[in-house]
């Protein structure tokens, strides 16, 4: 795997928009064009070259070193190839990701993977609110792909999510799966309060819920075949990092009955 490495010279003094740093976009530009791109968010142009030193040769991956939480839209619109980030990222990392892999070896800000429709986002640390969530102007939040977070996820993971899978090795904050219309959110350490508020369809999986809405109906213990498929899918997508297979039986709660109520909250362990 070859690719360019961008090392931040120092912490940026303003928010940056790094949506240009994908293998495809880099392949379209000469190095000088690339380094002249404006990545700043003020009236004064801030060139990519002012912020980063580049090394390596163009290829199917991009590496960003010294990233901070002021760097927004990292890996957005990625279609193929890999973007690896050493450090933290800001808002909307992996926005509209369609394929490939975004590998964040730090924490991510809000709206991680909003609008993602394919590919994978891996986060070593924790993520902010609205993981895979809806950004104004989107019909839905996440519509496909996989987001796997080693740490915790903030509130409202999967807001208005339609498809795809969010896997959180740690805890999910409150209101996970709010307004969700499909897809799966799986936490190993449990949900905060009121998960699945206005959940229309989709699946929330976790060992516990801090506070359950009254509009989730207890449907009893079940061996749910689709969970076996999900476990296999996770194993194939994440390899050794995959979670251990779900138990044979889970407690199913159907909801949110405040709306069409075709979703489910599954309590494991």
């Amino acid at each position, binding site marked *: 795997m070859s690719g360019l490495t961008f090392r931040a010279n120092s912490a940026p003094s303003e928010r940056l928009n790094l949506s240009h740093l994908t293998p495809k976009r880099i392949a379209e530009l000469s190095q000088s064009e690339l380094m002249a791109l404006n990545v700043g968010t003020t009236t004064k142009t801030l060139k990519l070259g002012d912020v980063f030193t580049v090394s390596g040769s163009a290829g199917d991956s991009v590496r960003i070193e010294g990233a901070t939480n002021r760097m927004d839209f990292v890996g957005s619109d990625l279609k193929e190839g890999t973007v690896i980030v050493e450090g933290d990222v800001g808002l909307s990392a992996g926005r509209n990701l369609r394929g490939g892999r975004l590998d964040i070896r730090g924490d991510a800000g809000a709206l991680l993977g909003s609008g993602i429709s394919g590919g994978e986002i891996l986060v070593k640390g924790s993520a902010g609110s609205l993981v895979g969530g809806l950004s*104004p*102007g*989107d*019909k839905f939040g996440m519509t496909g792909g996989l987001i796997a977070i080693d740490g915790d996820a903030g509130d409202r993971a999967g807001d208005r999510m339609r498809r795809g899978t969010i896997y959180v090795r740690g805890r999910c904050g409150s209101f996970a799966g709010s307004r969700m219309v499909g897809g799966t959110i799986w936490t190993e350490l449990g949900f905060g309060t009121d998960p699945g508020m206005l959940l229309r369809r989709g699946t929330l999986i976790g060992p516990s819920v801090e506070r359950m809405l009254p509009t989730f109906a207890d449907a009893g213990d079940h061996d749910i075949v689709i969970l076996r498929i999900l476990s296999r899918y996770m194993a194939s997508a994440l390899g050794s990092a995959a979670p251990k297979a779900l138990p044979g039986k889970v407690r199913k709660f159907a909801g949110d009955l405040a709306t069409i109520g075709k979703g489910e909250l599954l309590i494991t362990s």
Partner: protein
Amino acid sequence: MMIKLTGGKVYDPANNVNGEVRDIYVRDGRIVAADPDARVDQEYDVRGKVVMAGAIDPHTHIGGGKVTIARTLLPEDHFKDEVAHTEITRAGTGYATPSTMITGYRYAEMGYTAAFEPAMLPANARQAHMEMGDTPLLDKGAFVMLGSDDFLLRSMAEKQDFEFIKDYIAWTMHASQAIAMKVVNPGGISAFKFNQRKLDLDEQHVHYGVTPRDIILTLARGLLELGVTHPLHVHGCNLGIPGNVETTLATIKATEGLPLHLTHIQFHSYATEGDRKFSSGAVQIAELLKKYPNISIDVGQVMFGATCTASGDSMRQYNGAKNADPKRWVVMDIECDAGCGVVPFRYRDKSFVHALQWAIGLETFLLCDDPWRIFLTTDHPNGAPFYTYPHLIRLLMDRDFRRETMLHVNPDALMYSTLPHLEREYTMYEVAIMTRAGPARSLGLKDLGHVGPGARADITVYNEDSNRERMFEKPAMVFKNGDLVVRDGKVIKVVNGATHVARPEYNRDIEKSLKSYFDRYHTVRMENFRLSDDEIIDGGRGEIIVQPTRARTSS
């Protein structure tokens, strides 16, 4: 300051000029008679180019609450069309519901110098005018909506004296600073508030007992007797419902000689033939219109793509909301005055229904033989954004282009329309009527829409081009009140246009009843409901032009 446009090929139907080469002289913002002795300060050589008056859009939703709701609802509509400021122009956004400044710039860049908001709620008039005040380069005006307002319906139910109702109509036009009046789903918006879900022409309003027919006739006759030039602007019952052509035909017949303008008639020309129970009623409409010279129409042409429908017709919009794309819509009941519904929509060329809507619009254009009675509109943004006009003009002027375009639309749809058989091509003269002289005459804009002496010097100069779309989308020059504001399709100077109003006479006593009504029921004082001239003029931002009305009569 004398300006001369030399040697252009002039199409000026109001003055019976059909493509003749003429020089046009402009002094102090107005067109003046040729004066060979006058000293010309600035001469523009427009030889070989086509000269027309600035175009007038008589029905385009450019201001008011519903447009701003649409803007809020669909940020993604703007994401794809963000426009940076320049030295002279402001930043903004385009697309189906463009921001106000961009609306002004883009209309001007297409050769339009006047545009009329056709659905101003009295309760929202102040905002509508504020938005139009932020729409540069265009003269504008608004049609105020009555017909589902409780004051009128009460008055009709109580069988108030007709002069009283006329006073109310006139007062409303004054209070809201309107040039004309529109009725939208007559009585239906109000009926919806009473949980009535449908109201046909002769169906009774569940609470007031009046029918849409009563309302249309009352308002149409009222406006006629008040001497308002533009007849009642009617968005009829049953918009969008297959079979509504019957309602529309009945509405035309109901006029009994009264003048009426039927707007976005495409949406009201649906018959029920075929397996899908959906077919074109354009032929029936066109035939009947020949017998009713008192009726004018605009089309509300549908063009393919994403747009947002915004209408006062809360009843029909609520019904149509199930087809919203994206599934995100707003319906409102407003101030015992009216309502609104904002429903995003995507017209697809492969869809049977949408392709047929497209065909019906074109059919209507091609079947109606009197261009003085049909105006070119897409009901922006309901049928399509106004930027599609040049494309539409090409479809009308270029048969081959039309045929080629038909190859890409749902073929089954074309079987339920006569469009494939229509050979007509609009002439330049007819286009000039439909987009200038006709609307100006219909709206009573005495010095707009023509380039004869005395006219305001709103002039558009086009490069002659057999590709009419290219020709009409990027004029060589546009003059607004004699100022060259657009060159080669780009704004080079920004000026403000005027606001046109009509002020029919009324008896001030009406305010006694109104005052009592407002005090008893309303949350706004009558005095504050009225919009003052100062609010429009607003520190030099605008100018008000009062267009003449005929003397008030009584029947």
